């Protein structure tokens, strides 16, 4: 059987979903026998490769870098999975949306609440520009499957991956669909 080319991506999120991924513990060893991890914050690859079979995307689309990257990822992934509540709903990352834009949140964070050096960071080579609205991944590119949870428990991640490895849709139901 051909080995699965698996990628994980970390956009606007807390990395909790990746922590939960690591909670797969010894099943990770089994996974390693089925799949190669070709891109991930957990490994040291800088450029998203071509011909990826499955990509798990953690986090919402919150800045220009995310916006561009997710399009590259989508173009090079056969199956794209929204991984965790931020990717699926925007979740905590998107809570800033009710403040009505990027500038109000930057002003609030860097000017109003700052005690010293009141200044909005403006070197885009270091800090990507924020989008006005944080978006769930499927509002930016088509997503194949959704894996909710904040974070999704390891068992839920395993259900999804096992199914995908077997070429089946990752059938989640009951409490496995719980947000939060």
């Amino acid at each position, binding site marked *: 059987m051909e080995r699965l080319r698996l990628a994980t991506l970390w956009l606007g999120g807390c990395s909790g979903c990746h922590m939960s991924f690591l909670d797969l513990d010894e099943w990770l060893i089994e996974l390693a026998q089925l799949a190669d991890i070709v891109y991930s914050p957990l490994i040291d690859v800088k450029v998203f490769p071509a011909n990826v079979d499955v990509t798990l995307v953690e986090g919402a689309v919150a800045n220009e870098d995310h916006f561009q990257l997710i399009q590259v990822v989508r173009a090079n992934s056969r199956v794209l999975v929204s991984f965790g509540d931020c990717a*699926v*709903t*925007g979740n905590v990352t998107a809570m800033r*949306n*009710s403040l009505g834009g990027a500038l109000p949140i930057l002003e609030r964070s860097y000017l109003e609440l700052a005690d010293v050096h009141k200044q909005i960071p403006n070197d885009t080579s270091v800090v990507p520009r924020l989008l006005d609205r944080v978006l769930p991944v499927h509002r930016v590119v088509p997503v194949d499957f959704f894996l909710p949870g904040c974070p999704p428990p390891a068992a839920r991640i395993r259900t999804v991956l096992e199914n995908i490895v077997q070429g089946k849709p990752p059938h989640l*139901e009951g409490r496995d669909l*719980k947000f*939060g």
Partner: protein
Amino acid sequence: MSVVTLTIDGKLVSARAGDTILTAAREAGIDIPTLCYVDGLSAHGGCRICLVEIAGSPRLQPACFMKVGEGMEVQTDTERLRGYRRTIVELLFAEGNHVCSVCVANGGCELQDMAITVGMDHDRFDYIHPKREVDLSHERFGIDHNRCILCTRCIRACDELEGAHTWDMAGRGSHSKVITDLNEPWGESQTCTSCGKCFMACPTGSIFQKGDTVAETDHPRAKLEFLVNAREKKQWNV
């Protein structure tokens, strides 16, 4: 008391004339999902989750309102209804700011559970992200309007059980908002008795007890029915 027979999901059911389809179904062990309905309070008919199909009727009817009729054939769980229910739940999630992961009611929320019931794995609609307030002026309770689904349970509980009518709905359409008195801070309400029945009734984390943190709030919703039985039937079902 006259009795009527009807079929619900193909099952022959007998019910008291004047009962709603919801009561008849639940007594027969058929669960119709509900959201704005809660035992002990009058029916509202607003959430549209409990809509059922009735043979020969072009319109879907809310089971919480519609009375049983002799020979009625009711379907509660068709493909079409499941699709509608999921859409309605998606509309609710998109309309407010429902962030389960940081909500006091996480794990004990009827909206969250409804998403599971209808199989909602993501929301196909734009999140509106409205700017809404949090009122923490009451000494024991708080209300986070971000999590309010406008089901009016708090209004009905306060009016029908406590009798204070502290709560009501203000505004209209997507600008609707539950208010206390003249839209004054809850803590300054002249009519509130701090009885907590609104808190008992709330399906989400919108009305919560102060001090509860994420996933700690547990609304004692069954207390409402307990109170009604105690008051009206003199039965204390402890």
